[in-house]
């Protein structure tokens, strides 16, 4: 390889990419399969150990505590009231909490899904690449012979793992509060049929997974935004701004034509898992839409990240 070639390589790939590209082009070193797992583990630990992440998770864990205590105080411990006059105000399932603590899980997820959860995911996703760039650590990450594609995949996997962790934090905190403050037992689905507590727990877990999956589209969007800028703050703000914009557009009835294509549109469909029989239409649409967002913005992030100059 002549020096001229190397120079050209460096120029269009960016200084750091050159190193990685040489490593890939001449596979002298066999890539150990566990290597990317190690990278993922590192990423996960770095992300989850950040004070910022821990604070986000603490806020998420506090929401069910707040709801649980408020409902408990409001009903004064006497379940006689039953919340019948609530008239359906507040987040979904709120009226049922006093009768069954398990409903606190659903209420907490319904309350955090529109804002808190995506906010946390937006922060982590927006920070993924841009944060490294602004801290000046991105080039060192790329010195390792992992390749940009794999680094990007690792970052996305980390964000997805955070989606799951955040959702489970809400669910587990809500379950703990529900057990502490309210009676448990068989629960009535929103279709009026009864299911056992064990099946209820199973559905709660399933709902948590669906909620986590609902965030994958936003995660990909955040990752794409993150590859566009060198400023972590800018990426986070943009991602959260896009989230809020989408939520506002959801509220404008005149825009009903485009609403089915906005990523938050089917978010509340997780409640369909509490129908008997389960009503799959909305759930399937939600997952399809999230997969579409993940594919579009994931590939856009890849196109951007593998071709851009890394200068910081």
């Amino acid at each position, binding site marked *: 390889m*002549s*020096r*001229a*070639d190397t*120079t*050209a390589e460096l120029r*269009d790939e960016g200084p750091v990419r050159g190193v990685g590209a040489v490593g890939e082009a001449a596979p002298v070193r066999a890539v150990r399969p566990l290597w990317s797992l190690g990278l993922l583990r590192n990423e996960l630990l770095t992300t989850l150990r950040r004070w910022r992440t821990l604070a986000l998770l603490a806020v998420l864990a506090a929401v069910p505590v707040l709801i649980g205590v408020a409902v408990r105080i409001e009903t004064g411990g006497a*379940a*006689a*009231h*039953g*919340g*019948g*006059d*609530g*008239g*359906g105000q507040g987040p*979904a*399932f709120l*009226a*049922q909490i*006093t*009768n*069954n603590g398990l409903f606190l899980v659903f209420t907490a997820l*319904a309350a955090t899904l529109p804002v808190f959860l995506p906010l946390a995911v937006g922060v982590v996703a927006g920070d993924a690449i841009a944060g490294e760039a602004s801290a000046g650590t991105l080039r060192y990450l790329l010195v390792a012979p992992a390749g940009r594609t794999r680094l990007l995949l690792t970052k996305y996997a980390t964000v997805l793992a955070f989606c799951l962790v955040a959702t489970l934090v809400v669910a587990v905190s809500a379950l703990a509060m529900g057990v502490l403050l309210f*009676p448990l*037992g068989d*629960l*009535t689905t*929103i*279709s*009026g*049929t*009864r299911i056992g507590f064990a099946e209820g727990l199973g559905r709660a877990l399933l709902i948590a997974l669906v909620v986590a999956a609902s965030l994958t589209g936003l995660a990909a969007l955040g990752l794409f935004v993150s590859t566009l800028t060198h400023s972590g703050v800018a990426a986070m703000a943009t991602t959260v701004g896009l989230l809020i914009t989408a939520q506002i557009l959801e509220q404008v009835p005149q825009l009903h034509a485009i609403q089915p294509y906005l990523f938050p549109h089917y978010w*509340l469909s997780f*409640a369909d898992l509490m*129908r*008997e*029989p389960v*009503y799959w*239409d909305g759930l399937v649409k939600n997952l399809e839409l999230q997969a*579409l967002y993940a*594919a*579009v*913005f994931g*590939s*856009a992030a*890849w*196109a*951007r990240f*593998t*071709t851009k100059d890394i200068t910081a």
Partner: protein
Amino acid sequence: MAPYESDGSRDVEETDVPHSRRRKAARYAVPAAVVGVAAATIGLVPALADSGDPDLPKITAQQLVQKIAESDVEQLSGTVRINTDLGLPDLGGLESGLTSGAAGDGSGSSADPSAKLTELASGTHTLRVAADGPDRQKVSVIESAAEYSLIHNGEDVWGYDSKSDAVYHETADTAETAGTAAQDGARHGRQGLGQAPATPKDFAEQALKAVDDTTSVTVDGTAQVAGRDAYKLVVKPQHASGTTVGVISVAVDAKTGLPLKFTLTPASGGAAVLDVGFTRISFAEPAAGTFDFTPPKGAKITEGKDAGGAKGADGKAREHSGDVPQGFGPGAGLLGGGGADGAKVLGKGWNSIATYDTGQKGGIPSSSAGGDLGGFLGSFGDKVSGTFGKGTVFSTRLINALITDDGKVYVGAVTKDALVKAADAAH
């Protein structure tokens, strides 16, 4: 850069930069392609799924009507989409506020079927229905993260509103004796449930009742509804210039004779006023626990008898919401509306008009009930006058109602002029 390399370097630069741009463009083509494929899928799949009209043996309209009459489907479960476009101003929350406010005077239970079923009279709703014989039926209105279920199981009729965790209960006996009180609510709940209310079958039967010599009934090819082959029955009023009903189209399942889809287009054209159809249907036995209902612990239960006390309020609520259920079909005051006290039917066939006396002088009934509300409603109506005196006409794309100043009400799926003429004649 060293001078002896400059030539080569320039060479590389000239050929390589466009190359890199091309590669960059190629990478960005991936997300673009994903978007393209997705758009194509969204656009094409419904078109491809529409596999054309099925080939079915020819059948006469007579035979098809016979088939509907003989249909003996006892067990089914499915999803129904109901779309109503009466051309009313979009009141949104205001409308339901009025309805629940009026109903709230009496029972105040959000699980009361009458309040819930009025909601179906506007907009798009998804319902799930299940039936197993004449004694066990269930209808659920799917709402965002909530559901309203009406369950009929033997002696009991339960209404459960999951949003407020409220339960409405009555026994079959109560429902019958409650007769007039429950003109729209309880009785509709029970009797209607017997045929799974708001299903296409319900509407089709009403439409066929109106068939007489002023009606043309034809079979218009075939269609696929909810994945099943169906005949299309077209009912058209003829020589009935007064009616607002344009065309009624019913898709009838070829195998079972069950109406799967019902579409009513007004004479004035445009989108269908009422479009009810199964989007999914299964004739298998519904799951065992479907019709069992035990009120959840702590839920507020309203007994049907109590709700009967809300009669006046309910009646009002229905008037305010435009008497929509009353006139879905011609004449006979369909869907329980005929139960209105002292209602008479003027004329016959498609031009028939239901009339009753509210006994309230002063026109719009609500003007005595609540000044604000009255004025508000009055602003929607058109003032008319004739030999009968003065009155206000409330119009929708299908139903028109004339409320005269001396308290008489004329309602029908007829034009304004026909209403005024009927009022004149009655005078």
